[in-house]
């Protein structure tokens, strides 16, 4: 099996999807001739032409709005938002239009769009190139939100997102683009939207995460296993909405201890929903309070590298938090 990084996986999956189905099209800023500011769409313009890989003006609301129109009209559009930080002008289109079309039309129309965006910090991105936006859309029924962390999950979930008859927000952690490599499955490969993945089995502590922090959790778990004999169960959510409550609850019933880690801010992050679910459904199995590790509640990821380090959860903090919980 080939080894690819996250970026290559995105690109290859897009290529395969566009080859398979001519309804698939991409639109966004610099996606065509430039091949994307991260090179995520490199080569697609040359392969499929300007009708299917469309360079748009700098106008996020229109990018999503046009994609919605094309979707209702029979295309399978993939709208790229160049950085998740720019998605805000498109929120009205996403929440008021895309999410509600099926409900509003009484199932006459669906809106099979994918909105792709690089998210997350740790790359000196400052205010407008580091944001996590999942919490904004988390409370909107009618949307699906997906945030895979491995190349195989990228292929499986992006394929599923493109084929999904309803809107899917597909989040790619930009720090993982080149840093995370893994096996990229050949041929047809599909991961259903919804189920989480237990990336590591253990009996002492459950860690729920997604994106880059999930990788920190895996690394910390290996170290803790060797150093302390503590066995951590790591659950990669992969899909944020709908949340795989069952996998999480089953794991906590086994371990009795839960740590949720995400890079998004603590308050109102999706960790709160996970915590409430577990407190409700696994109360008699809890051996310790439910803990959350997340970014500080400050208005922005700092530009200064020391402050950025201090604000975002890192591997050392994840490890310390797991150890602390294991010792409770």
């Amino acid at each position, binding site marked *: 099996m080939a080894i690819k990084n996250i970026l290559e996986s995105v690109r290859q999956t897009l290529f395969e999807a566009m080859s398979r189905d001519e309804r698939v099209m991409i639109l966004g800023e610099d996606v065509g001739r430039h091949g994307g500011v991260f090179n995520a769409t490199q080569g697609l313009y040359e392969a499929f032409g300007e009708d299917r890989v469309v360079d748009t003006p700098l106008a996020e609301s229109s990018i999503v709005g046009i994609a919605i129109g094309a979707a209702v009209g029979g295309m399978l559009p993939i709208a790229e938002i160049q950085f998740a930080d720019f998605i805000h002008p498109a929120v009205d289109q996403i929440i008021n239009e895309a999410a509600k079309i099926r409900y509003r039309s009484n199932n006459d129309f669906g809106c099979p769009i994918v909105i792709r965006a690089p998210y997350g910090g740790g790359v000196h991105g400052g205010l407008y190139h580091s944001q996590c936006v999942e919490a904004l859309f988390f409370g909107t029924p009618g949307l699906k939100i997906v945030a895979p962390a491995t190349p195989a999950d990228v292929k499986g979930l992006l394929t599923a997102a493109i084929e999904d008859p309803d809107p899917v927000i597909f989040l790619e952690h930009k720090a993982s683009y080149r840093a995370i490599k893994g096996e990229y499955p050949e041929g047809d490969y599909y991961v259903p939207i919804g189920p989480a993945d237990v990336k590591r089995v253990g009996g002492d502590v459950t860690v729920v995460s997604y994106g880059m922090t999930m990788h920190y959790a895996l690394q910390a778990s290996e170290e803790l296993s060797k150093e302390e004999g503590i066995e951590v169960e790591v659950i990669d959510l992969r899909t944020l909405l709908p949340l795989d409550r069952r996998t999480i609850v089953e794991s906590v019933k086994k371990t009795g201890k839960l740590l949720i880690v995400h890079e998004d801010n603590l308050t109102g992050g999706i960790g709160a929903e996970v915590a409430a679910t577990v407190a409700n459904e696994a109360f008699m199995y809890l*051996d310790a309070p439910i803990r959350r*590790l*997340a970014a500080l509640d400050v208005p922005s990821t700092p530009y200064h590298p020391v402050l950025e380090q201090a*604000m*975002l959860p890192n591997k050392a*903090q994840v490890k310390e*938090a797991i150890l602390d919980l294991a010792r409770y």
Partner: protein
Amino acid sequence: MPREIVMPKLGESVVEGVIGKWLKAEGDFVDEDEPLVEVDTDKVNAEVPSPARGIVHRLLAREGETVAVGQVIAIIREVDEEVADLPAGESAPGGSTVANGSGGFAPGGSVAAAASAGVEPLARSPHLYSPAVRRLAAESGIDPATVTGTGRGGRVSKKDMERAIAQAKERERAVVLSGSHESRSVWAPEDESGSASAARRPLADGDEVLPITRMRRTIAERMVHSKRTVPHAWTTVEVDVTSLVAWRESIKEEFRRREGFNLTYLPFVVKAAVEALREYPILNSTWEEDRIVIKRRINIGIAVDLEDGLIVPVIKDADQKSIVGLARAIADLATRARAGTLTPDDVTGGTFTINNTGAFGSILSAPIINYPQAAILSMETITKRPVVVGDGIAIRSMMNLCMSLDHRVLDGAVCGRFLRSVKRRLESYDANTPLY
């Protein structure tokens, strides 16, 4: 709330520090960030500031003492707080409470990413059990107050309860395996199996080493004890079971269809034996230091072979069962023995044991008595042999019965009479014998 002060990590790889000098005494007021103690490590000596404002309630480490990073070294209470007194010199195992951004004691650590709600310093009350602990307590019946806690601050954790539950199961299993509450504990300090006293011989190439399982060790200890303390005598009789065999052959298919299990010869032997035991109750007894106790109940142990050993479940009040009742009890105990689901009640209280060694083709055996019983009977294989009948020779189905007896309680005469009684009954079983 009283605030625990922990040994800080004064360097990247520092794991412990030595209390150099306390700069405050118990009862002194200390302000936030005021130096509290001098700590020496192999990298750096430092003055450690207090993270909290208050009164030094208790100093938990002595000057010159080496303390691990994270261990609690002092308690500070608020200025007008009453604190229930902690035993002097107590320090919490496993150290720190996690406070939100814990006052900069962990460089590069928790000042940074927000951890949700600093956990309250763990209350010292031993009765604060988590939901998981309470659930396990309710399910198992084990009181957490009786369990040693290894969680933070001595808390009884879920793992501690799981351990206690596993230990209770082990103890129950040990009872099942050892077969008797009254008999010597399998944990007897004098090693009765003799294995420890034997010097370890060197292994040769290709030798296979098997660990000794609990079952094996239990069997070993009981066998050695029995042979060492009970003077075994042995006797045997031949039994002509031709009619029994003929009868059983004729009814066995129908029996299987009706009852759902096979009718073997064992229940007949058991029936004959319990009736003979009623005639000669001295064989259903126990030798003790200063008396012989004749047991009223006749509880027959049936040896069942398992994959890696043997176990002897007991048919209680076997004298009150019919032949079919005995057959059914034997089948049930054997099934449960092989499934590992026998209870302690199933393996205790036996007064006499019967062993079907004939199942393996044996024609004579010298079984080892199951102390505190006085005797053990083995039934051997049934073979067709030419024997003298009257003045002629006939081919008869013959079965030997062997008996080992505790010669302190029993003599050859009474055993001979007992065996003759068993033989007489077995030789009389035929189509007229009531099964039910």
